[in-house]
């Protein structure tokens, strides 16, 4: 798997070149379509991961019974986008109605230092009732993020309140990819959604992948 090639195909460009979002795609060549096509063309993204869920239990992709996983990588200290992304996932599952049973919502923390199972348990309960939070050792999280081509890193901030202390040192922000992944039961990515796609767009695309069941099987 060449993540760099995939990223180039996905059209990653500096923020200054981004046109405004209109109908759920940034511009025609930056929609998720190239990613989905790349995946069906044989590019393999995602896959099996080995992490720890919010009850402290070790899990792998094999432990999920649903035919699809809907995964967002984030961290609980982030009070802005991560909360809204999980809420968006929640609304999507509501809109899917009976089809929602085919989708397992997953939140993978890119901040295992602070996001222990206990912290995750406290957090995921606020979103979809079936949302599973995953964390693990730094190595486990690193391996999982790498499989999905997810970038994450600590942002070191100078504190403006004089000396740094343990409390402010623990207030770091993180930069991270803000993509939502729809996978098959083996964790392999079937489609990818950028942060700002409209709910209608997300719903239609997810329905298409999971609804008729053909999309998932063809791509195994």
């Amino acid at each position, binding site marked *: 798997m060449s993540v760099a090639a995939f990223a180039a195909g996905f059209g*990653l460009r500096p923020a200054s070149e981004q046109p405004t979002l209109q109908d759920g795609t940034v511009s025609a060549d930056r929609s998720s379509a190239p990613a989905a096509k790349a995946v069906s063309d044989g590019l393999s993204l995602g896959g099996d991961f080995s992490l720890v869920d919010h009850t402290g239990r070790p899990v792998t992709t094999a432990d999920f019974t649903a035919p699809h996983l809907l995964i967002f990588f984030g961290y609980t*200290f982030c009070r802005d986008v991560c909360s809204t992304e999980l809420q968006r996932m929640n609304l999507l599952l509501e809109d899917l109605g009976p089809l929602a049973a085919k989708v397992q919502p997953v939140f993978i923390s890119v901040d295992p230092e602070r996001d222990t199972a206990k912290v995750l348990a406290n957090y995921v309960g606020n979103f979809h009732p079936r949302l599973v939070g995953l964390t693990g050792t730094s190595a486990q999280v690193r391996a999982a993020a790498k499989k999905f081509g997810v970038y994450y890193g600590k942002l070191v901030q100078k504190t403006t309140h004089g000396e740094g202390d343990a409390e402010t040192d623990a207030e770091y922000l993180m930069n991270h*990819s803000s993509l939502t992944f729809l996978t098959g039961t083996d964790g392999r990515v079937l489609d990818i959604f950028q942060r700002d796609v409209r709910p209608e767009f997300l719903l239609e695309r997810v329905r298409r992948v999971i609804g008729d069941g053909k999309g998932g099987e063809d791509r195994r």
Partner: protein
Amino acid sequence: MFLVYAMLATAILTGPLAAAQFRAGDVQITKAWARATPGASKSAAAYLTLRNTGRRIDRLVGLTTPVARRVAVHGTRMQGNVMQMYSIASVELRPGKTVVLRSGGMHVMLTGLKQILRKGATFPLTLRFAKAGAVEIRVSDSGIGAMGPASLHGANHGKKRC
């Protein structure tokens, strides 16, 4: 009878049904809201809309609140699909312009949270402007995954699509 109507109108406009508005000099502050926090959370995000109705440039230069040890304004920038946050020292308010702090854009970050923010509650936040001076506003807490302030017509069921 007119007096009754006038009093009623005043009560409606200044009562709980009125959108909360605050003012410091020429700066109008509206739609101040925050997301409720899960128990034991140390951070929270808040948003507000600032409008400079005056003729001179002003800047939001400081924020303090009794519910958190540190308050800062953060911006969000996308580098491709990677989301980055950064500190903003002051927010410029041009004359006649409105600046909206919204999810995914600029937001107020509270850290060293001293209490849980509960949906339906409010907390005080003091804003300090370079020219307009300081004003204490009240920030309303919406649901934990809320996309916007709770509507005037009852609970925000999280169905807002922004």
